[in-house]
């Protein structure tokens, strides 16, 4: 997918949200509101086993006793949880084996998004599990992966076909008691992705899932469970775009990663939910809990490019439990107009000789607020733990905010923890230099910002890197102060 100067010009002419459109597919919706009956309804609709229903019910019970957190550096109108429909599935539900069977409306949507499945199938070898609202519709490359023993399917399918794996690992990294949104998700999650890589297998392709919020007023409660068995490797891509809506939409996903001994998981996200318009009306609330746990000599690497959502609350974390395990977090977060982001990571060092790296690049424009919040905790037993954190903020206007809230908790004297952060304005000399060479201001900003974020963008798989660069440009349009 190449992006030409012509495309850029078109984008510049049309500064409204690029992917703002609604796919017209009939949906089956649960009644609005949340109570125990709804939880039971969701579970029975999905034909779930008893243990899973009980899990949902316990989570719901806990959720009712919890309060919505307010410690983050964001302000928004709290969602009315009784005014949300907790289940929506496309009505024409049937088993699909090939793309021909996919609803043409859906294919059109994908074309608009620029993620033609056929093209990706042919060119990049990416298996796509396409989530339309909450239910998986098409999964490709399944057979090929199956030969290697890799399971890659929707969460619901996994519950039906691999109940032992789901029961063994679900909720082990993020228990339903973890936080308000995780509890909510645990009670009402609709669907999501499940992935299992067997021992010693190196997944030959990037696994990817595209999420979309489609139904107006439908909360999205995705659940992802990814297990990399001993000495396996997987790179997983997750990307989101959402259609333009005037009312706020809630997205409260849970992503659990389990990286067993000597395994490696690379989890990349490009997040581009609808951010609201120039006046701050509408946009998605993105309250996500993402966490992974590492076994002996294993590694989890989070890379994220966050450009969308009206409010983001997200801290992809690593529990470095195994000795010699490694956690990484690379993030670019862009906020424009009235967007608010409070994002970062938690690196919990438990095992010996564990190592973590945090590189965070925040870019604030318009009247937005962009916060990095991170925790580095070195536990008592984490002998020789090492952490390096670099958190930079770039300010584009004099009406936005850039904030850094690192928490460093060191309880072992053999650890070394280093944190650095800088905040500065986009370099006027750099801009002038570019413009003197005939580069337009918009383009110059995009160049400079891409350079600034390069360290993180480089960590993305190729397919995403292009899209991510494009997103940065679009997100910062008209941002010059």
């Amino acid at each position, binding site marked *: 997918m190449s992006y030409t100067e012509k495309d850029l010009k078109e984008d510049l002419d049309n500064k409204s949200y690029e992917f703002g459109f609604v796919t017209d597919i009939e949906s089956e919706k649960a009644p609005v509101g949340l109570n125990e009956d709804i939880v039971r309804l969701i579970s029975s609709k999905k034909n779930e086993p008893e243990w899973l229903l009980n899990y949902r019910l316990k989570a719901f019970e806990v959720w009712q006793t919890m309060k919505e957190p307010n*410690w983050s*550096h964001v302000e928004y109108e709290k969602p009315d949880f009784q005014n949300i429909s907790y289940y929506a599935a496309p009505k024409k539900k049937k088993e699909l084996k090939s793309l021909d069977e996919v609803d043409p409306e859906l294919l059109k949507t994908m074309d608009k998004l620029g993620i033609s499945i056929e093209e990706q199938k042919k060119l990049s070898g990416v298996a796509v599990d396409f989530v339309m609202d909450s239910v998986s519709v098409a999964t490709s490359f399944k057979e090929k992966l199956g030969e290697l023993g890799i399971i890659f399917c929707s969460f619901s399918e996994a519950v039906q076909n691999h109940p032992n794996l789901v029961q063994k690992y679900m909720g082990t990294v993020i228990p339903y008691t973890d936080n308000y949104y995780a509890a909510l998700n645990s009670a009402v999650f609709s669907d999501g992705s499940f992935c299992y890589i067997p021992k010693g297998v190196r997944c030959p392709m990037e696994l990817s899932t595209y999420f979309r919020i489609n139904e107006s007023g439908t909360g999205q409660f995705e659940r992802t469970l990814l297990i990399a068995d001993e000495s396996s490797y997987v790179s997983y891509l997750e990307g989101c775009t959402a259609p333009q809506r005037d009312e706020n939409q809630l997205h409260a996903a849970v992503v659990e990663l389990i990286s067993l001994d000597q395994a490696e998981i690379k989890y990349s996200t490009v997040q581009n939910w609808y951010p609201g318009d120039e006046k701050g009306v509408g946009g998605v609330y993105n309250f996500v809990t993402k966490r992974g746990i590492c076994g002996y000599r294993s590694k989890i690497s989070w890379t994220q490019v966050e450009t969308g959502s009206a409010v983001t609350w997200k801290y992809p974390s690593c529990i470095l439990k195994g000795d010699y395990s490694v956690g990484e977090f690379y993030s670019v977060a862009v906020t424009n107009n009235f967007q608010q982001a409070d994002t970062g990571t938690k690196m919990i060092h438990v095992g010996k000789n564990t190592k973590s790296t945090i590189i965070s690049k925040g870019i604030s424009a318009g009247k937005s607020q962009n916060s990095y919040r991170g925790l580095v905790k070195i536990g008592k037993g984490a002998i020789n733990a090492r952490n390096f954190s670099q958190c930079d*903020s770039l*300010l*584009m*206007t*004099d*009406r*936005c*905010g*850039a*904030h*850094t*809230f*690192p*928490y*460093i*908790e*060191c*309880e*072992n*004297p*053999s*650890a*070394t*923890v*280093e*944190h*650095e*952060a*800088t*905040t*500065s*304005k986009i370099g006027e000399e750099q801009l002038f230099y570019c413009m003197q060479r005939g580069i337009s201001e918009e383009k110059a900003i995009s160049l400079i910002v891409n350079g600034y974020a390069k360290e993180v963008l480089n960590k993305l798989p190729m397919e995403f890197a292009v899209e991510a660069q494009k997103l940065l440009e679009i997100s910062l349009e008209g941002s010059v*102060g």
Partner: protein
Amino acid sequence: MITDKLNYSPLVKAESNNALDQFKGTLYPSKKEEEWRYSPLKKLRKIPFINDSSFVVKNLSLLNLPKLEGNILVLENGRFNPNLSFIDNIQGLNISFISNSKENYPYSTNLKKEDYFSLLNSSYLSEGIVIRVDGNAKIEETVNVLNIVSSNNCLVNTKIDVFLNENSSLHLKQYFIGNTTSKNGFINHLNNISIKENASLVLDKFQDLNLNFNISNDCINQGRSSKVISNTFSTSGLFTRNNVTNNVNGEHCHSELNGVFSPSENEYIDNHTLINHFVANCKSFENFKGIVKGNGVGVFNGKVIVHENAQKIEAFQNNKNILLDKESIIYSKPELEIYADDVKCSHGSTTGQFDDEAIFYLRARGISLKKSKELMILGFINEVIKKCNNIDYQDFIIERLLNN
């Protein structure tokens, strides 16, 4: 614990006391509050505090102090002790006591419910000192204020108001001392500092509380082109907490907060600082070094806020810590909140241990292991220590830091 046995201060207007009933019975914030998450408030909560204004210290030479020069004002158990004090009349310097004033002391009305210890201070105020420096007066002599707690369980609420008028300067040295013979005494102190245009203040603080508690709240307000340098050295104390709020209200100011803190066995030392850049064209520097021994706990929480329109701010924040023993703990939280774009702000925090290679190098030159570690500590704190221009004071601080 604050009980009915404690008396409200007769110095403060009575109506303010209503606000303080929250302190009766239990007292204090909870650990759930972000600002207090690392504080072992339990330590404070279980002590039944009393009023006790007796004088115990017979002679200052009995205390572990550096050589004192200039004015010496001694508050012992919250009361001015004239026998230990020395006041020299200096042109341009006016010192008075709140207890001598004919009027009631005005209650600080702008305190919020969360300002627990400032509220506590205001309602149970034991004594206050007001230091005024006339316009254009450069006070060469140091003003030393010693705040000593020498009785067990004694709650001391003291306050110093400092007013530096235009173009004046002052060097204030504060000592918070817990007498080695006393236990569980608590000095809850408030500094209210106002620095007018072009004035400059050097504030050295030395805290050696031994088995006692100290919470020290500084509120510093700076006018245009003024300068403040605050150096805080905390060598011992069961529970020592410094809350510094530095409001920079005028342009072209210089603000500097430095500190060395070294909690050892069973000790907790916490530095919370907030620098508010309300206006443009100012510089602030912050440098805190922590050395944690035994199962001591050290906390650094520094926040810099650059408010809207406060352009051309340069703010630098630095916190470095060394953990010396297996049980040593450090919590570091350097924060930046920036609402203006044309700024240069940075912060850094490192926590680690001595470099083994450097220790080997020193030992290979014939320096013993103990001495090598001392040298390394010296090197580590040097850039902060040298901020004090008095060699005696420097040596004293070093000696206390190494030998605590």
